[in-house]
């Protein structure tokens, strides 16, 4: 049994090495298919994070009059804190606001000069209100809108619904296009794998004829080709692992800029889920290539 297995593997490796170019073509197309799958996976993962991040970011700012007294402010703050949909209220005093403003513009001397020339703190104190959950935000916004207080200068509601809609829209488009591309790649992969095995069978037609003649079991005749299909799959998954991480490495700096505050690391995501992602892909690609091999075997090796 083991002996037969070793011989089948030997035969399959022979078949692969005798048709190097076909092997390269098959593996290349499988790698392209896998690449598109992984890009889609990346997009999916990023959009999930982006949506979460945006939802998380739902906050409502109340800008207060600069001459509001500390007592007025703290009574407003406790009034808001007691609302049932509120998770947390952060207070930014005039001085804090100025500090944040300076920090934010530290590389911008003109702004700082202008500020210094002004000679006083022009910023308003504010309350930042976080809802319990993103879903409760619209209702909370309604309540805050209705709230009546002398010291409120303006109310600012980040309109996240629109952003979420946009992200969803883009993601869905990308997924649609991605699935289309993937299905084309799967179809092409099957054609190419089918063809490679067909040629491999043709190159081995004398061996196959002799195997038949001397009474080799059918399994021995076709298993090497099935095995070749699995080797194609294995090679393509190993190659995609080798090229996809550097690719993510190139992508990461841009993502860091784009998702500045959200601490997204796609390399870690792919590392954490390494086995799930790539063993599933190996199984899928094996199925594709074994199925095509099998069809070619049925047709051309007549087993």
């Amino acid at each position, binding site marked *: 049994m083991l002996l037969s297995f070793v*011989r089948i593997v030997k035969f399959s490796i022979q078949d692969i090495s005798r048709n190097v170019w076909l092997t390269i073509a098959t593996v290349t197309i499988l790698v392209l298919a896998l690449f598109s799958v992984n890009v889609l996976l990346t997009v999916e993962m990023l959009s999930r994070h982006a949506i979460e991040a945006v939802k998380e970011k739902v906050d409502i700012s109340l800008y207060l009059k600069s001459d509001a007294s500390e007592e007025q402010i703290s009574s407003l703050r406790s009034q808001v804190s007691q609302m049932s949909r509120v998770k947390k209220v952060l207070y930014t005093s005039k001085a804090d606001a100025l500090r944040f403003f300076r920090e934010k513009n530290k590389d911008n001397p003109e702004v700082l000069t202008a500020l210094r020339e002004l000679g006083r703190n022009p910023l308003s104190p504010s309350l930042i209100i976080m809802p319990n959950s993103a879903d409760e935000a619209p209702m909370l916004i309604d309540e805050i809108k209705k709230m009546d207080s002398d010291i409120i200068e303006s109310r600012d509601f980040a309109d996240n619904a629109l952003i979420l809609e946009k992200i969803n829209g883009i993601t869905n488009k990308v997924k649609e296009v991605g699935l289309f591309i993937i299905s084309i790649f799967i179809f092409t992969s099957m054609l190419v794998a089918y063809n490679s095995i067909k040629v491999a069978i043709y190159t081995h037609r*004398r061996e196959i004829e002799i195997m*038949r003649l*001397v*009474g080799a*079991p*059918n399994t021995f*005749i076709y298993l090497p080709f099935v095995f070749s299909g699995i080797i194609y799959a294995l090679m393509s998954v190993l190659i995609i692992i080798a090229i996809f991480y550097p690719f993510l490495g190139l992508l990461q700096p841009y993502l860091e800029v784009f998702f500045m505050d959200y601490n997204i690391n796609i390399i870690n995501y792919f590392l954490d889920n390494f086995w799930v992602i790539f063993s599933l892909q190996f199984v899928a690609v094996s199925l594709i290539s074994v199925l095509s091999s099998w069809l070619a075997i049925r047709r051309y090796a007549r087993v």
Partner: protein
Amino acid sequence: MIKLINVSKSYLKNIEILHDINLYIEAGEFVSLVGQSGSGKTTLVKVLIGEERVGGGRVIIGDWDITRISKREVPYLRRQIGVIFQDFKLLPKKTLWENVAFALEVCGQSPAKIEKIVSSVMRLVGLEDKKNRYPHEVSGGEQQRTAIARALVHQPKILLADEPTGNLDSINANEIIDLLERINKFGTTVILVTHNREIVNQLKKRVITIDNGKVVSDQEKGKYLL
């Protein structure tokens, strides 16, 4: 050993290649099968090794009715029937020894057994000293002897030879026939398909003549008729 009962065969509808063939060949016989080109000899060989199914009648090998043999059973039949052809069917990139060993490898035999069986059949056909040569480095007769060695690795009860001397000069041809006779003496049933009048006449063994898919004569110690 071999029984053909009312066997008929056609590849395409309406064109019958074998008509109502009845043959009985006993174990240990040496039979020559002669007939003009296109008379159906190779077709008969293919029926015997389970490569073609008959349209009517029954085919029995030993006590096995192979008339409706399934694809999965064919390998077992092949291990009981050795076959050689005019074109030797050796693998050019393997040595003579490897060519013979290949037949055992693909049937899952262990290396120790392969070593033992291959060296014994190579001795039988007289090729021990050339076992490491490649087919293109030996004569046609030696290539055919390698093919015979390969056909014998499973110790078949029957050896089918479809025009084994077709590509050989008369000296090499005679050597092959001698070898087949020797194998027959060990008890193997040999069926020799041939065109060669001299060989048939020298053999003085049973001769079956087919013409147009029919058995037209069947003689003990026969002569080449056509």
